[in-house]
């Protein structure tokens, strides 16, 4: 067992599950989507991205790309939230909530892809 692989897999799967947990619920109901969940999803996603730095393989490059996409989705969701609540002052209306959740659902798709690639890689390099 390789500790590096454990940590790597842990963060990638954790990023997906946290993201999934945040997205779960009615798309336009703010009560179903908690800000702390989004915070953790962002932090874990950033760590997963950094862990993927410096991979020289093709699959490593796709890993990094999908992680960057997920970061982009989650950070835009956080920005929409911030601007709605503090800058525009409109608050979490159903439209805003739907847009936050759909952005993070996009990030979820990228995270699912990451996990799939992790599985493919594991199967390819069975040792």
């Amino acid at each position, binding site marked *: 067992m390789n500790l590096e692989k454990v940590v790597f897999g842990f963060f990638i799967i954790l990023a997906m599950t946290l993201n999934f947990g945040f997205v779960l619920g009615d798309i336009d109901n703010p009560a179903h989507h908690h*800000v*702390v969940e989004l*915070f953790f999803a962002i*932090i874990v996603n*950033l*760590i997963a991205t*950094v*862990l993927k*730095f*410096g*991979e*020289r393989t093709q699959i490593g490059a796709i890993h990094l790309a999908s992680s960057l996409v997920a970061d982009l989705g989650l950070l835009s969701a*956080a920005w929409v939230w*911030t601007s709605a*609540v*503090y800058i525009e002052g409109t608050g979490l209306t159903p439209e805003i909530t739907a847009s936050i959740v759909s952005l993070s659902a996009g990030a979820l798709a990228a995270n699912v892809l990451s996990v799939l690639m992790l599985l493919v890689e594991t199967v390819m390099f069975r040792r």
Partner: protein
Amino acid sequence: MHATLFLILRRMRAPLIFLILSYAIAILGMTLIPGADAQGRPAPPMDFFHAFYVVSYTATTIGFGELPVAFSEAQRAWIAFTIYLTVVVWLYSIGSILSLLQDPALLRAARANRFAGKVKRLHQPFYLIAGCGETGSLLMHALDSRNQQAVVLDIDAERIGELELGQYHLDIPALAADAALPENLIMAGLHNPHCAGVIALTNDDRANLSVAVTVKLLRPELPALCRSDALVTAANMASFGTDDVVVAFEVFGEHLAMAVNSPGHHLLYEWLTGVPGEHLIEPLEPPRGKWVVCGYGRFGKAIVHYLKQVGIELVVVEASPAETGCDNCIVGTGADARTLLEAGVEQAVGIVAGTNDDINNLSIVMTARQLNPRLFTVVRQNRHANDALFKRFQASVTMQPSRIIAHEFLSLLTTPLLSRFFSLIRGHEDAWFDELISRIAAVLENTVPEVWDVELSRNHTEALWEALRDGAPVPLHTLVSSPTDRDSDLACIPLLLKRGEIEILLPEPQTLLQLGDRILFCGERHTRNLQALCLSNFNVLSYLLTGRVIPSGKVWRWVERIGKTAPNSNAQSIPRKHA
């Protein structure tokens, strides 16, 4: 590029993860700890947006104070902790990024990348030079002054540093790397279509051999020129098709014999292969008669071999005759008067000090000169560091292997026609050389001439090509007359004309040119530019051919055609006065 980027990213993993974690902890803490309102009553904790804002300015030690409202005591305690956590992590991250930028492995990788990029962007033919010691830098200066690009590899980083300080017109990509490793040669552009040849000049015969093998296996069509110090390696290199192997001692022996036998021939060779712009050397006139050769190593053997060929009487002095295989010689170093007298230095006309020890060599010629002040002295200089001593002594000839190799390669590289020229002039009479030298000297300003060849093809000489295609008779003197005044000559001399298999040495001015001819010229540099004008500019060429200035615009040409149809027009071409 990629290798360094990946290295940086990989090394930055740990600092970045620590940074993200410390921010996460600090922000999370701020969103959990209750705050206080203006009256000091408990208030709900900060939201994520404000927590991120506070942590951002605290972590970077900007410190705006307590925003948006004064903190509660619990929040202050957490901020105190946050300061120590985040500031320390920031320092650690910045420190590791800075040390990463100074990492020798990374810097080396970056230099190699820059070098490879520069080589890739070269869009003109270049020579790959392995080893830029004395020989290499001489050769590079000469190539540079002929506007030919070079790419340099040398195992010694200091020499590469010196190269960067050198005065070159062209930007010469250089890398400190072992040329004996094929991957370095490949990085230096061995596979590049613009690579015109590889020159191995390191002071290590094994490395030169390895360069030759690499070139002949990977790009067999490329010329590989190698320096070699030992005849065995030279034979080895030649055995698998290395195009030219220069053994400095052999070349020097041959040239010394040439100078004894035919001083004009030797002088011509030195002039045409020198670095353009340097002063012309004076003719050497080594006397005929009895010569004393001290030292029968590789150098001494070569000297004896070539001097014997031209019928010079020789006495050899050698310290250890058994080791060097010298059966008929006087035993001694030659540095003491006794051995020199025994060798008959008083009756001799010349002495060669050719041991592998510079101080010994100087001591030999100094003693010999005291015994016989009229001696012609030839000294072998092994180390460049002793230059000052050799300059002060002023021997008749100082043999520096580096100069000889550089000259030899230059004659091979600059133009293939030049080496043809040298093989054709072999065996001419002294008078022939003297006449040619005085002709060349007449067009020069006491500096080494530029040597170039002109190929009459569509790409290189468009105007001339068109004129020849249309069947106009173009004599050779068109190319050596001045574009401003066709009755005066350019300061250059055609040396050789090559037409298919036919080679005409010193072609006559009346020779009619044909398409595909190649002509070798020597002269001042500015002459070459003037000549290029007549080769590619239609108006200049027609002026040179007919003596008339053709109007360049369509309207004026039409006006002239009208004028031509009028009676008594003076449209006949004026025949050129030719001296």
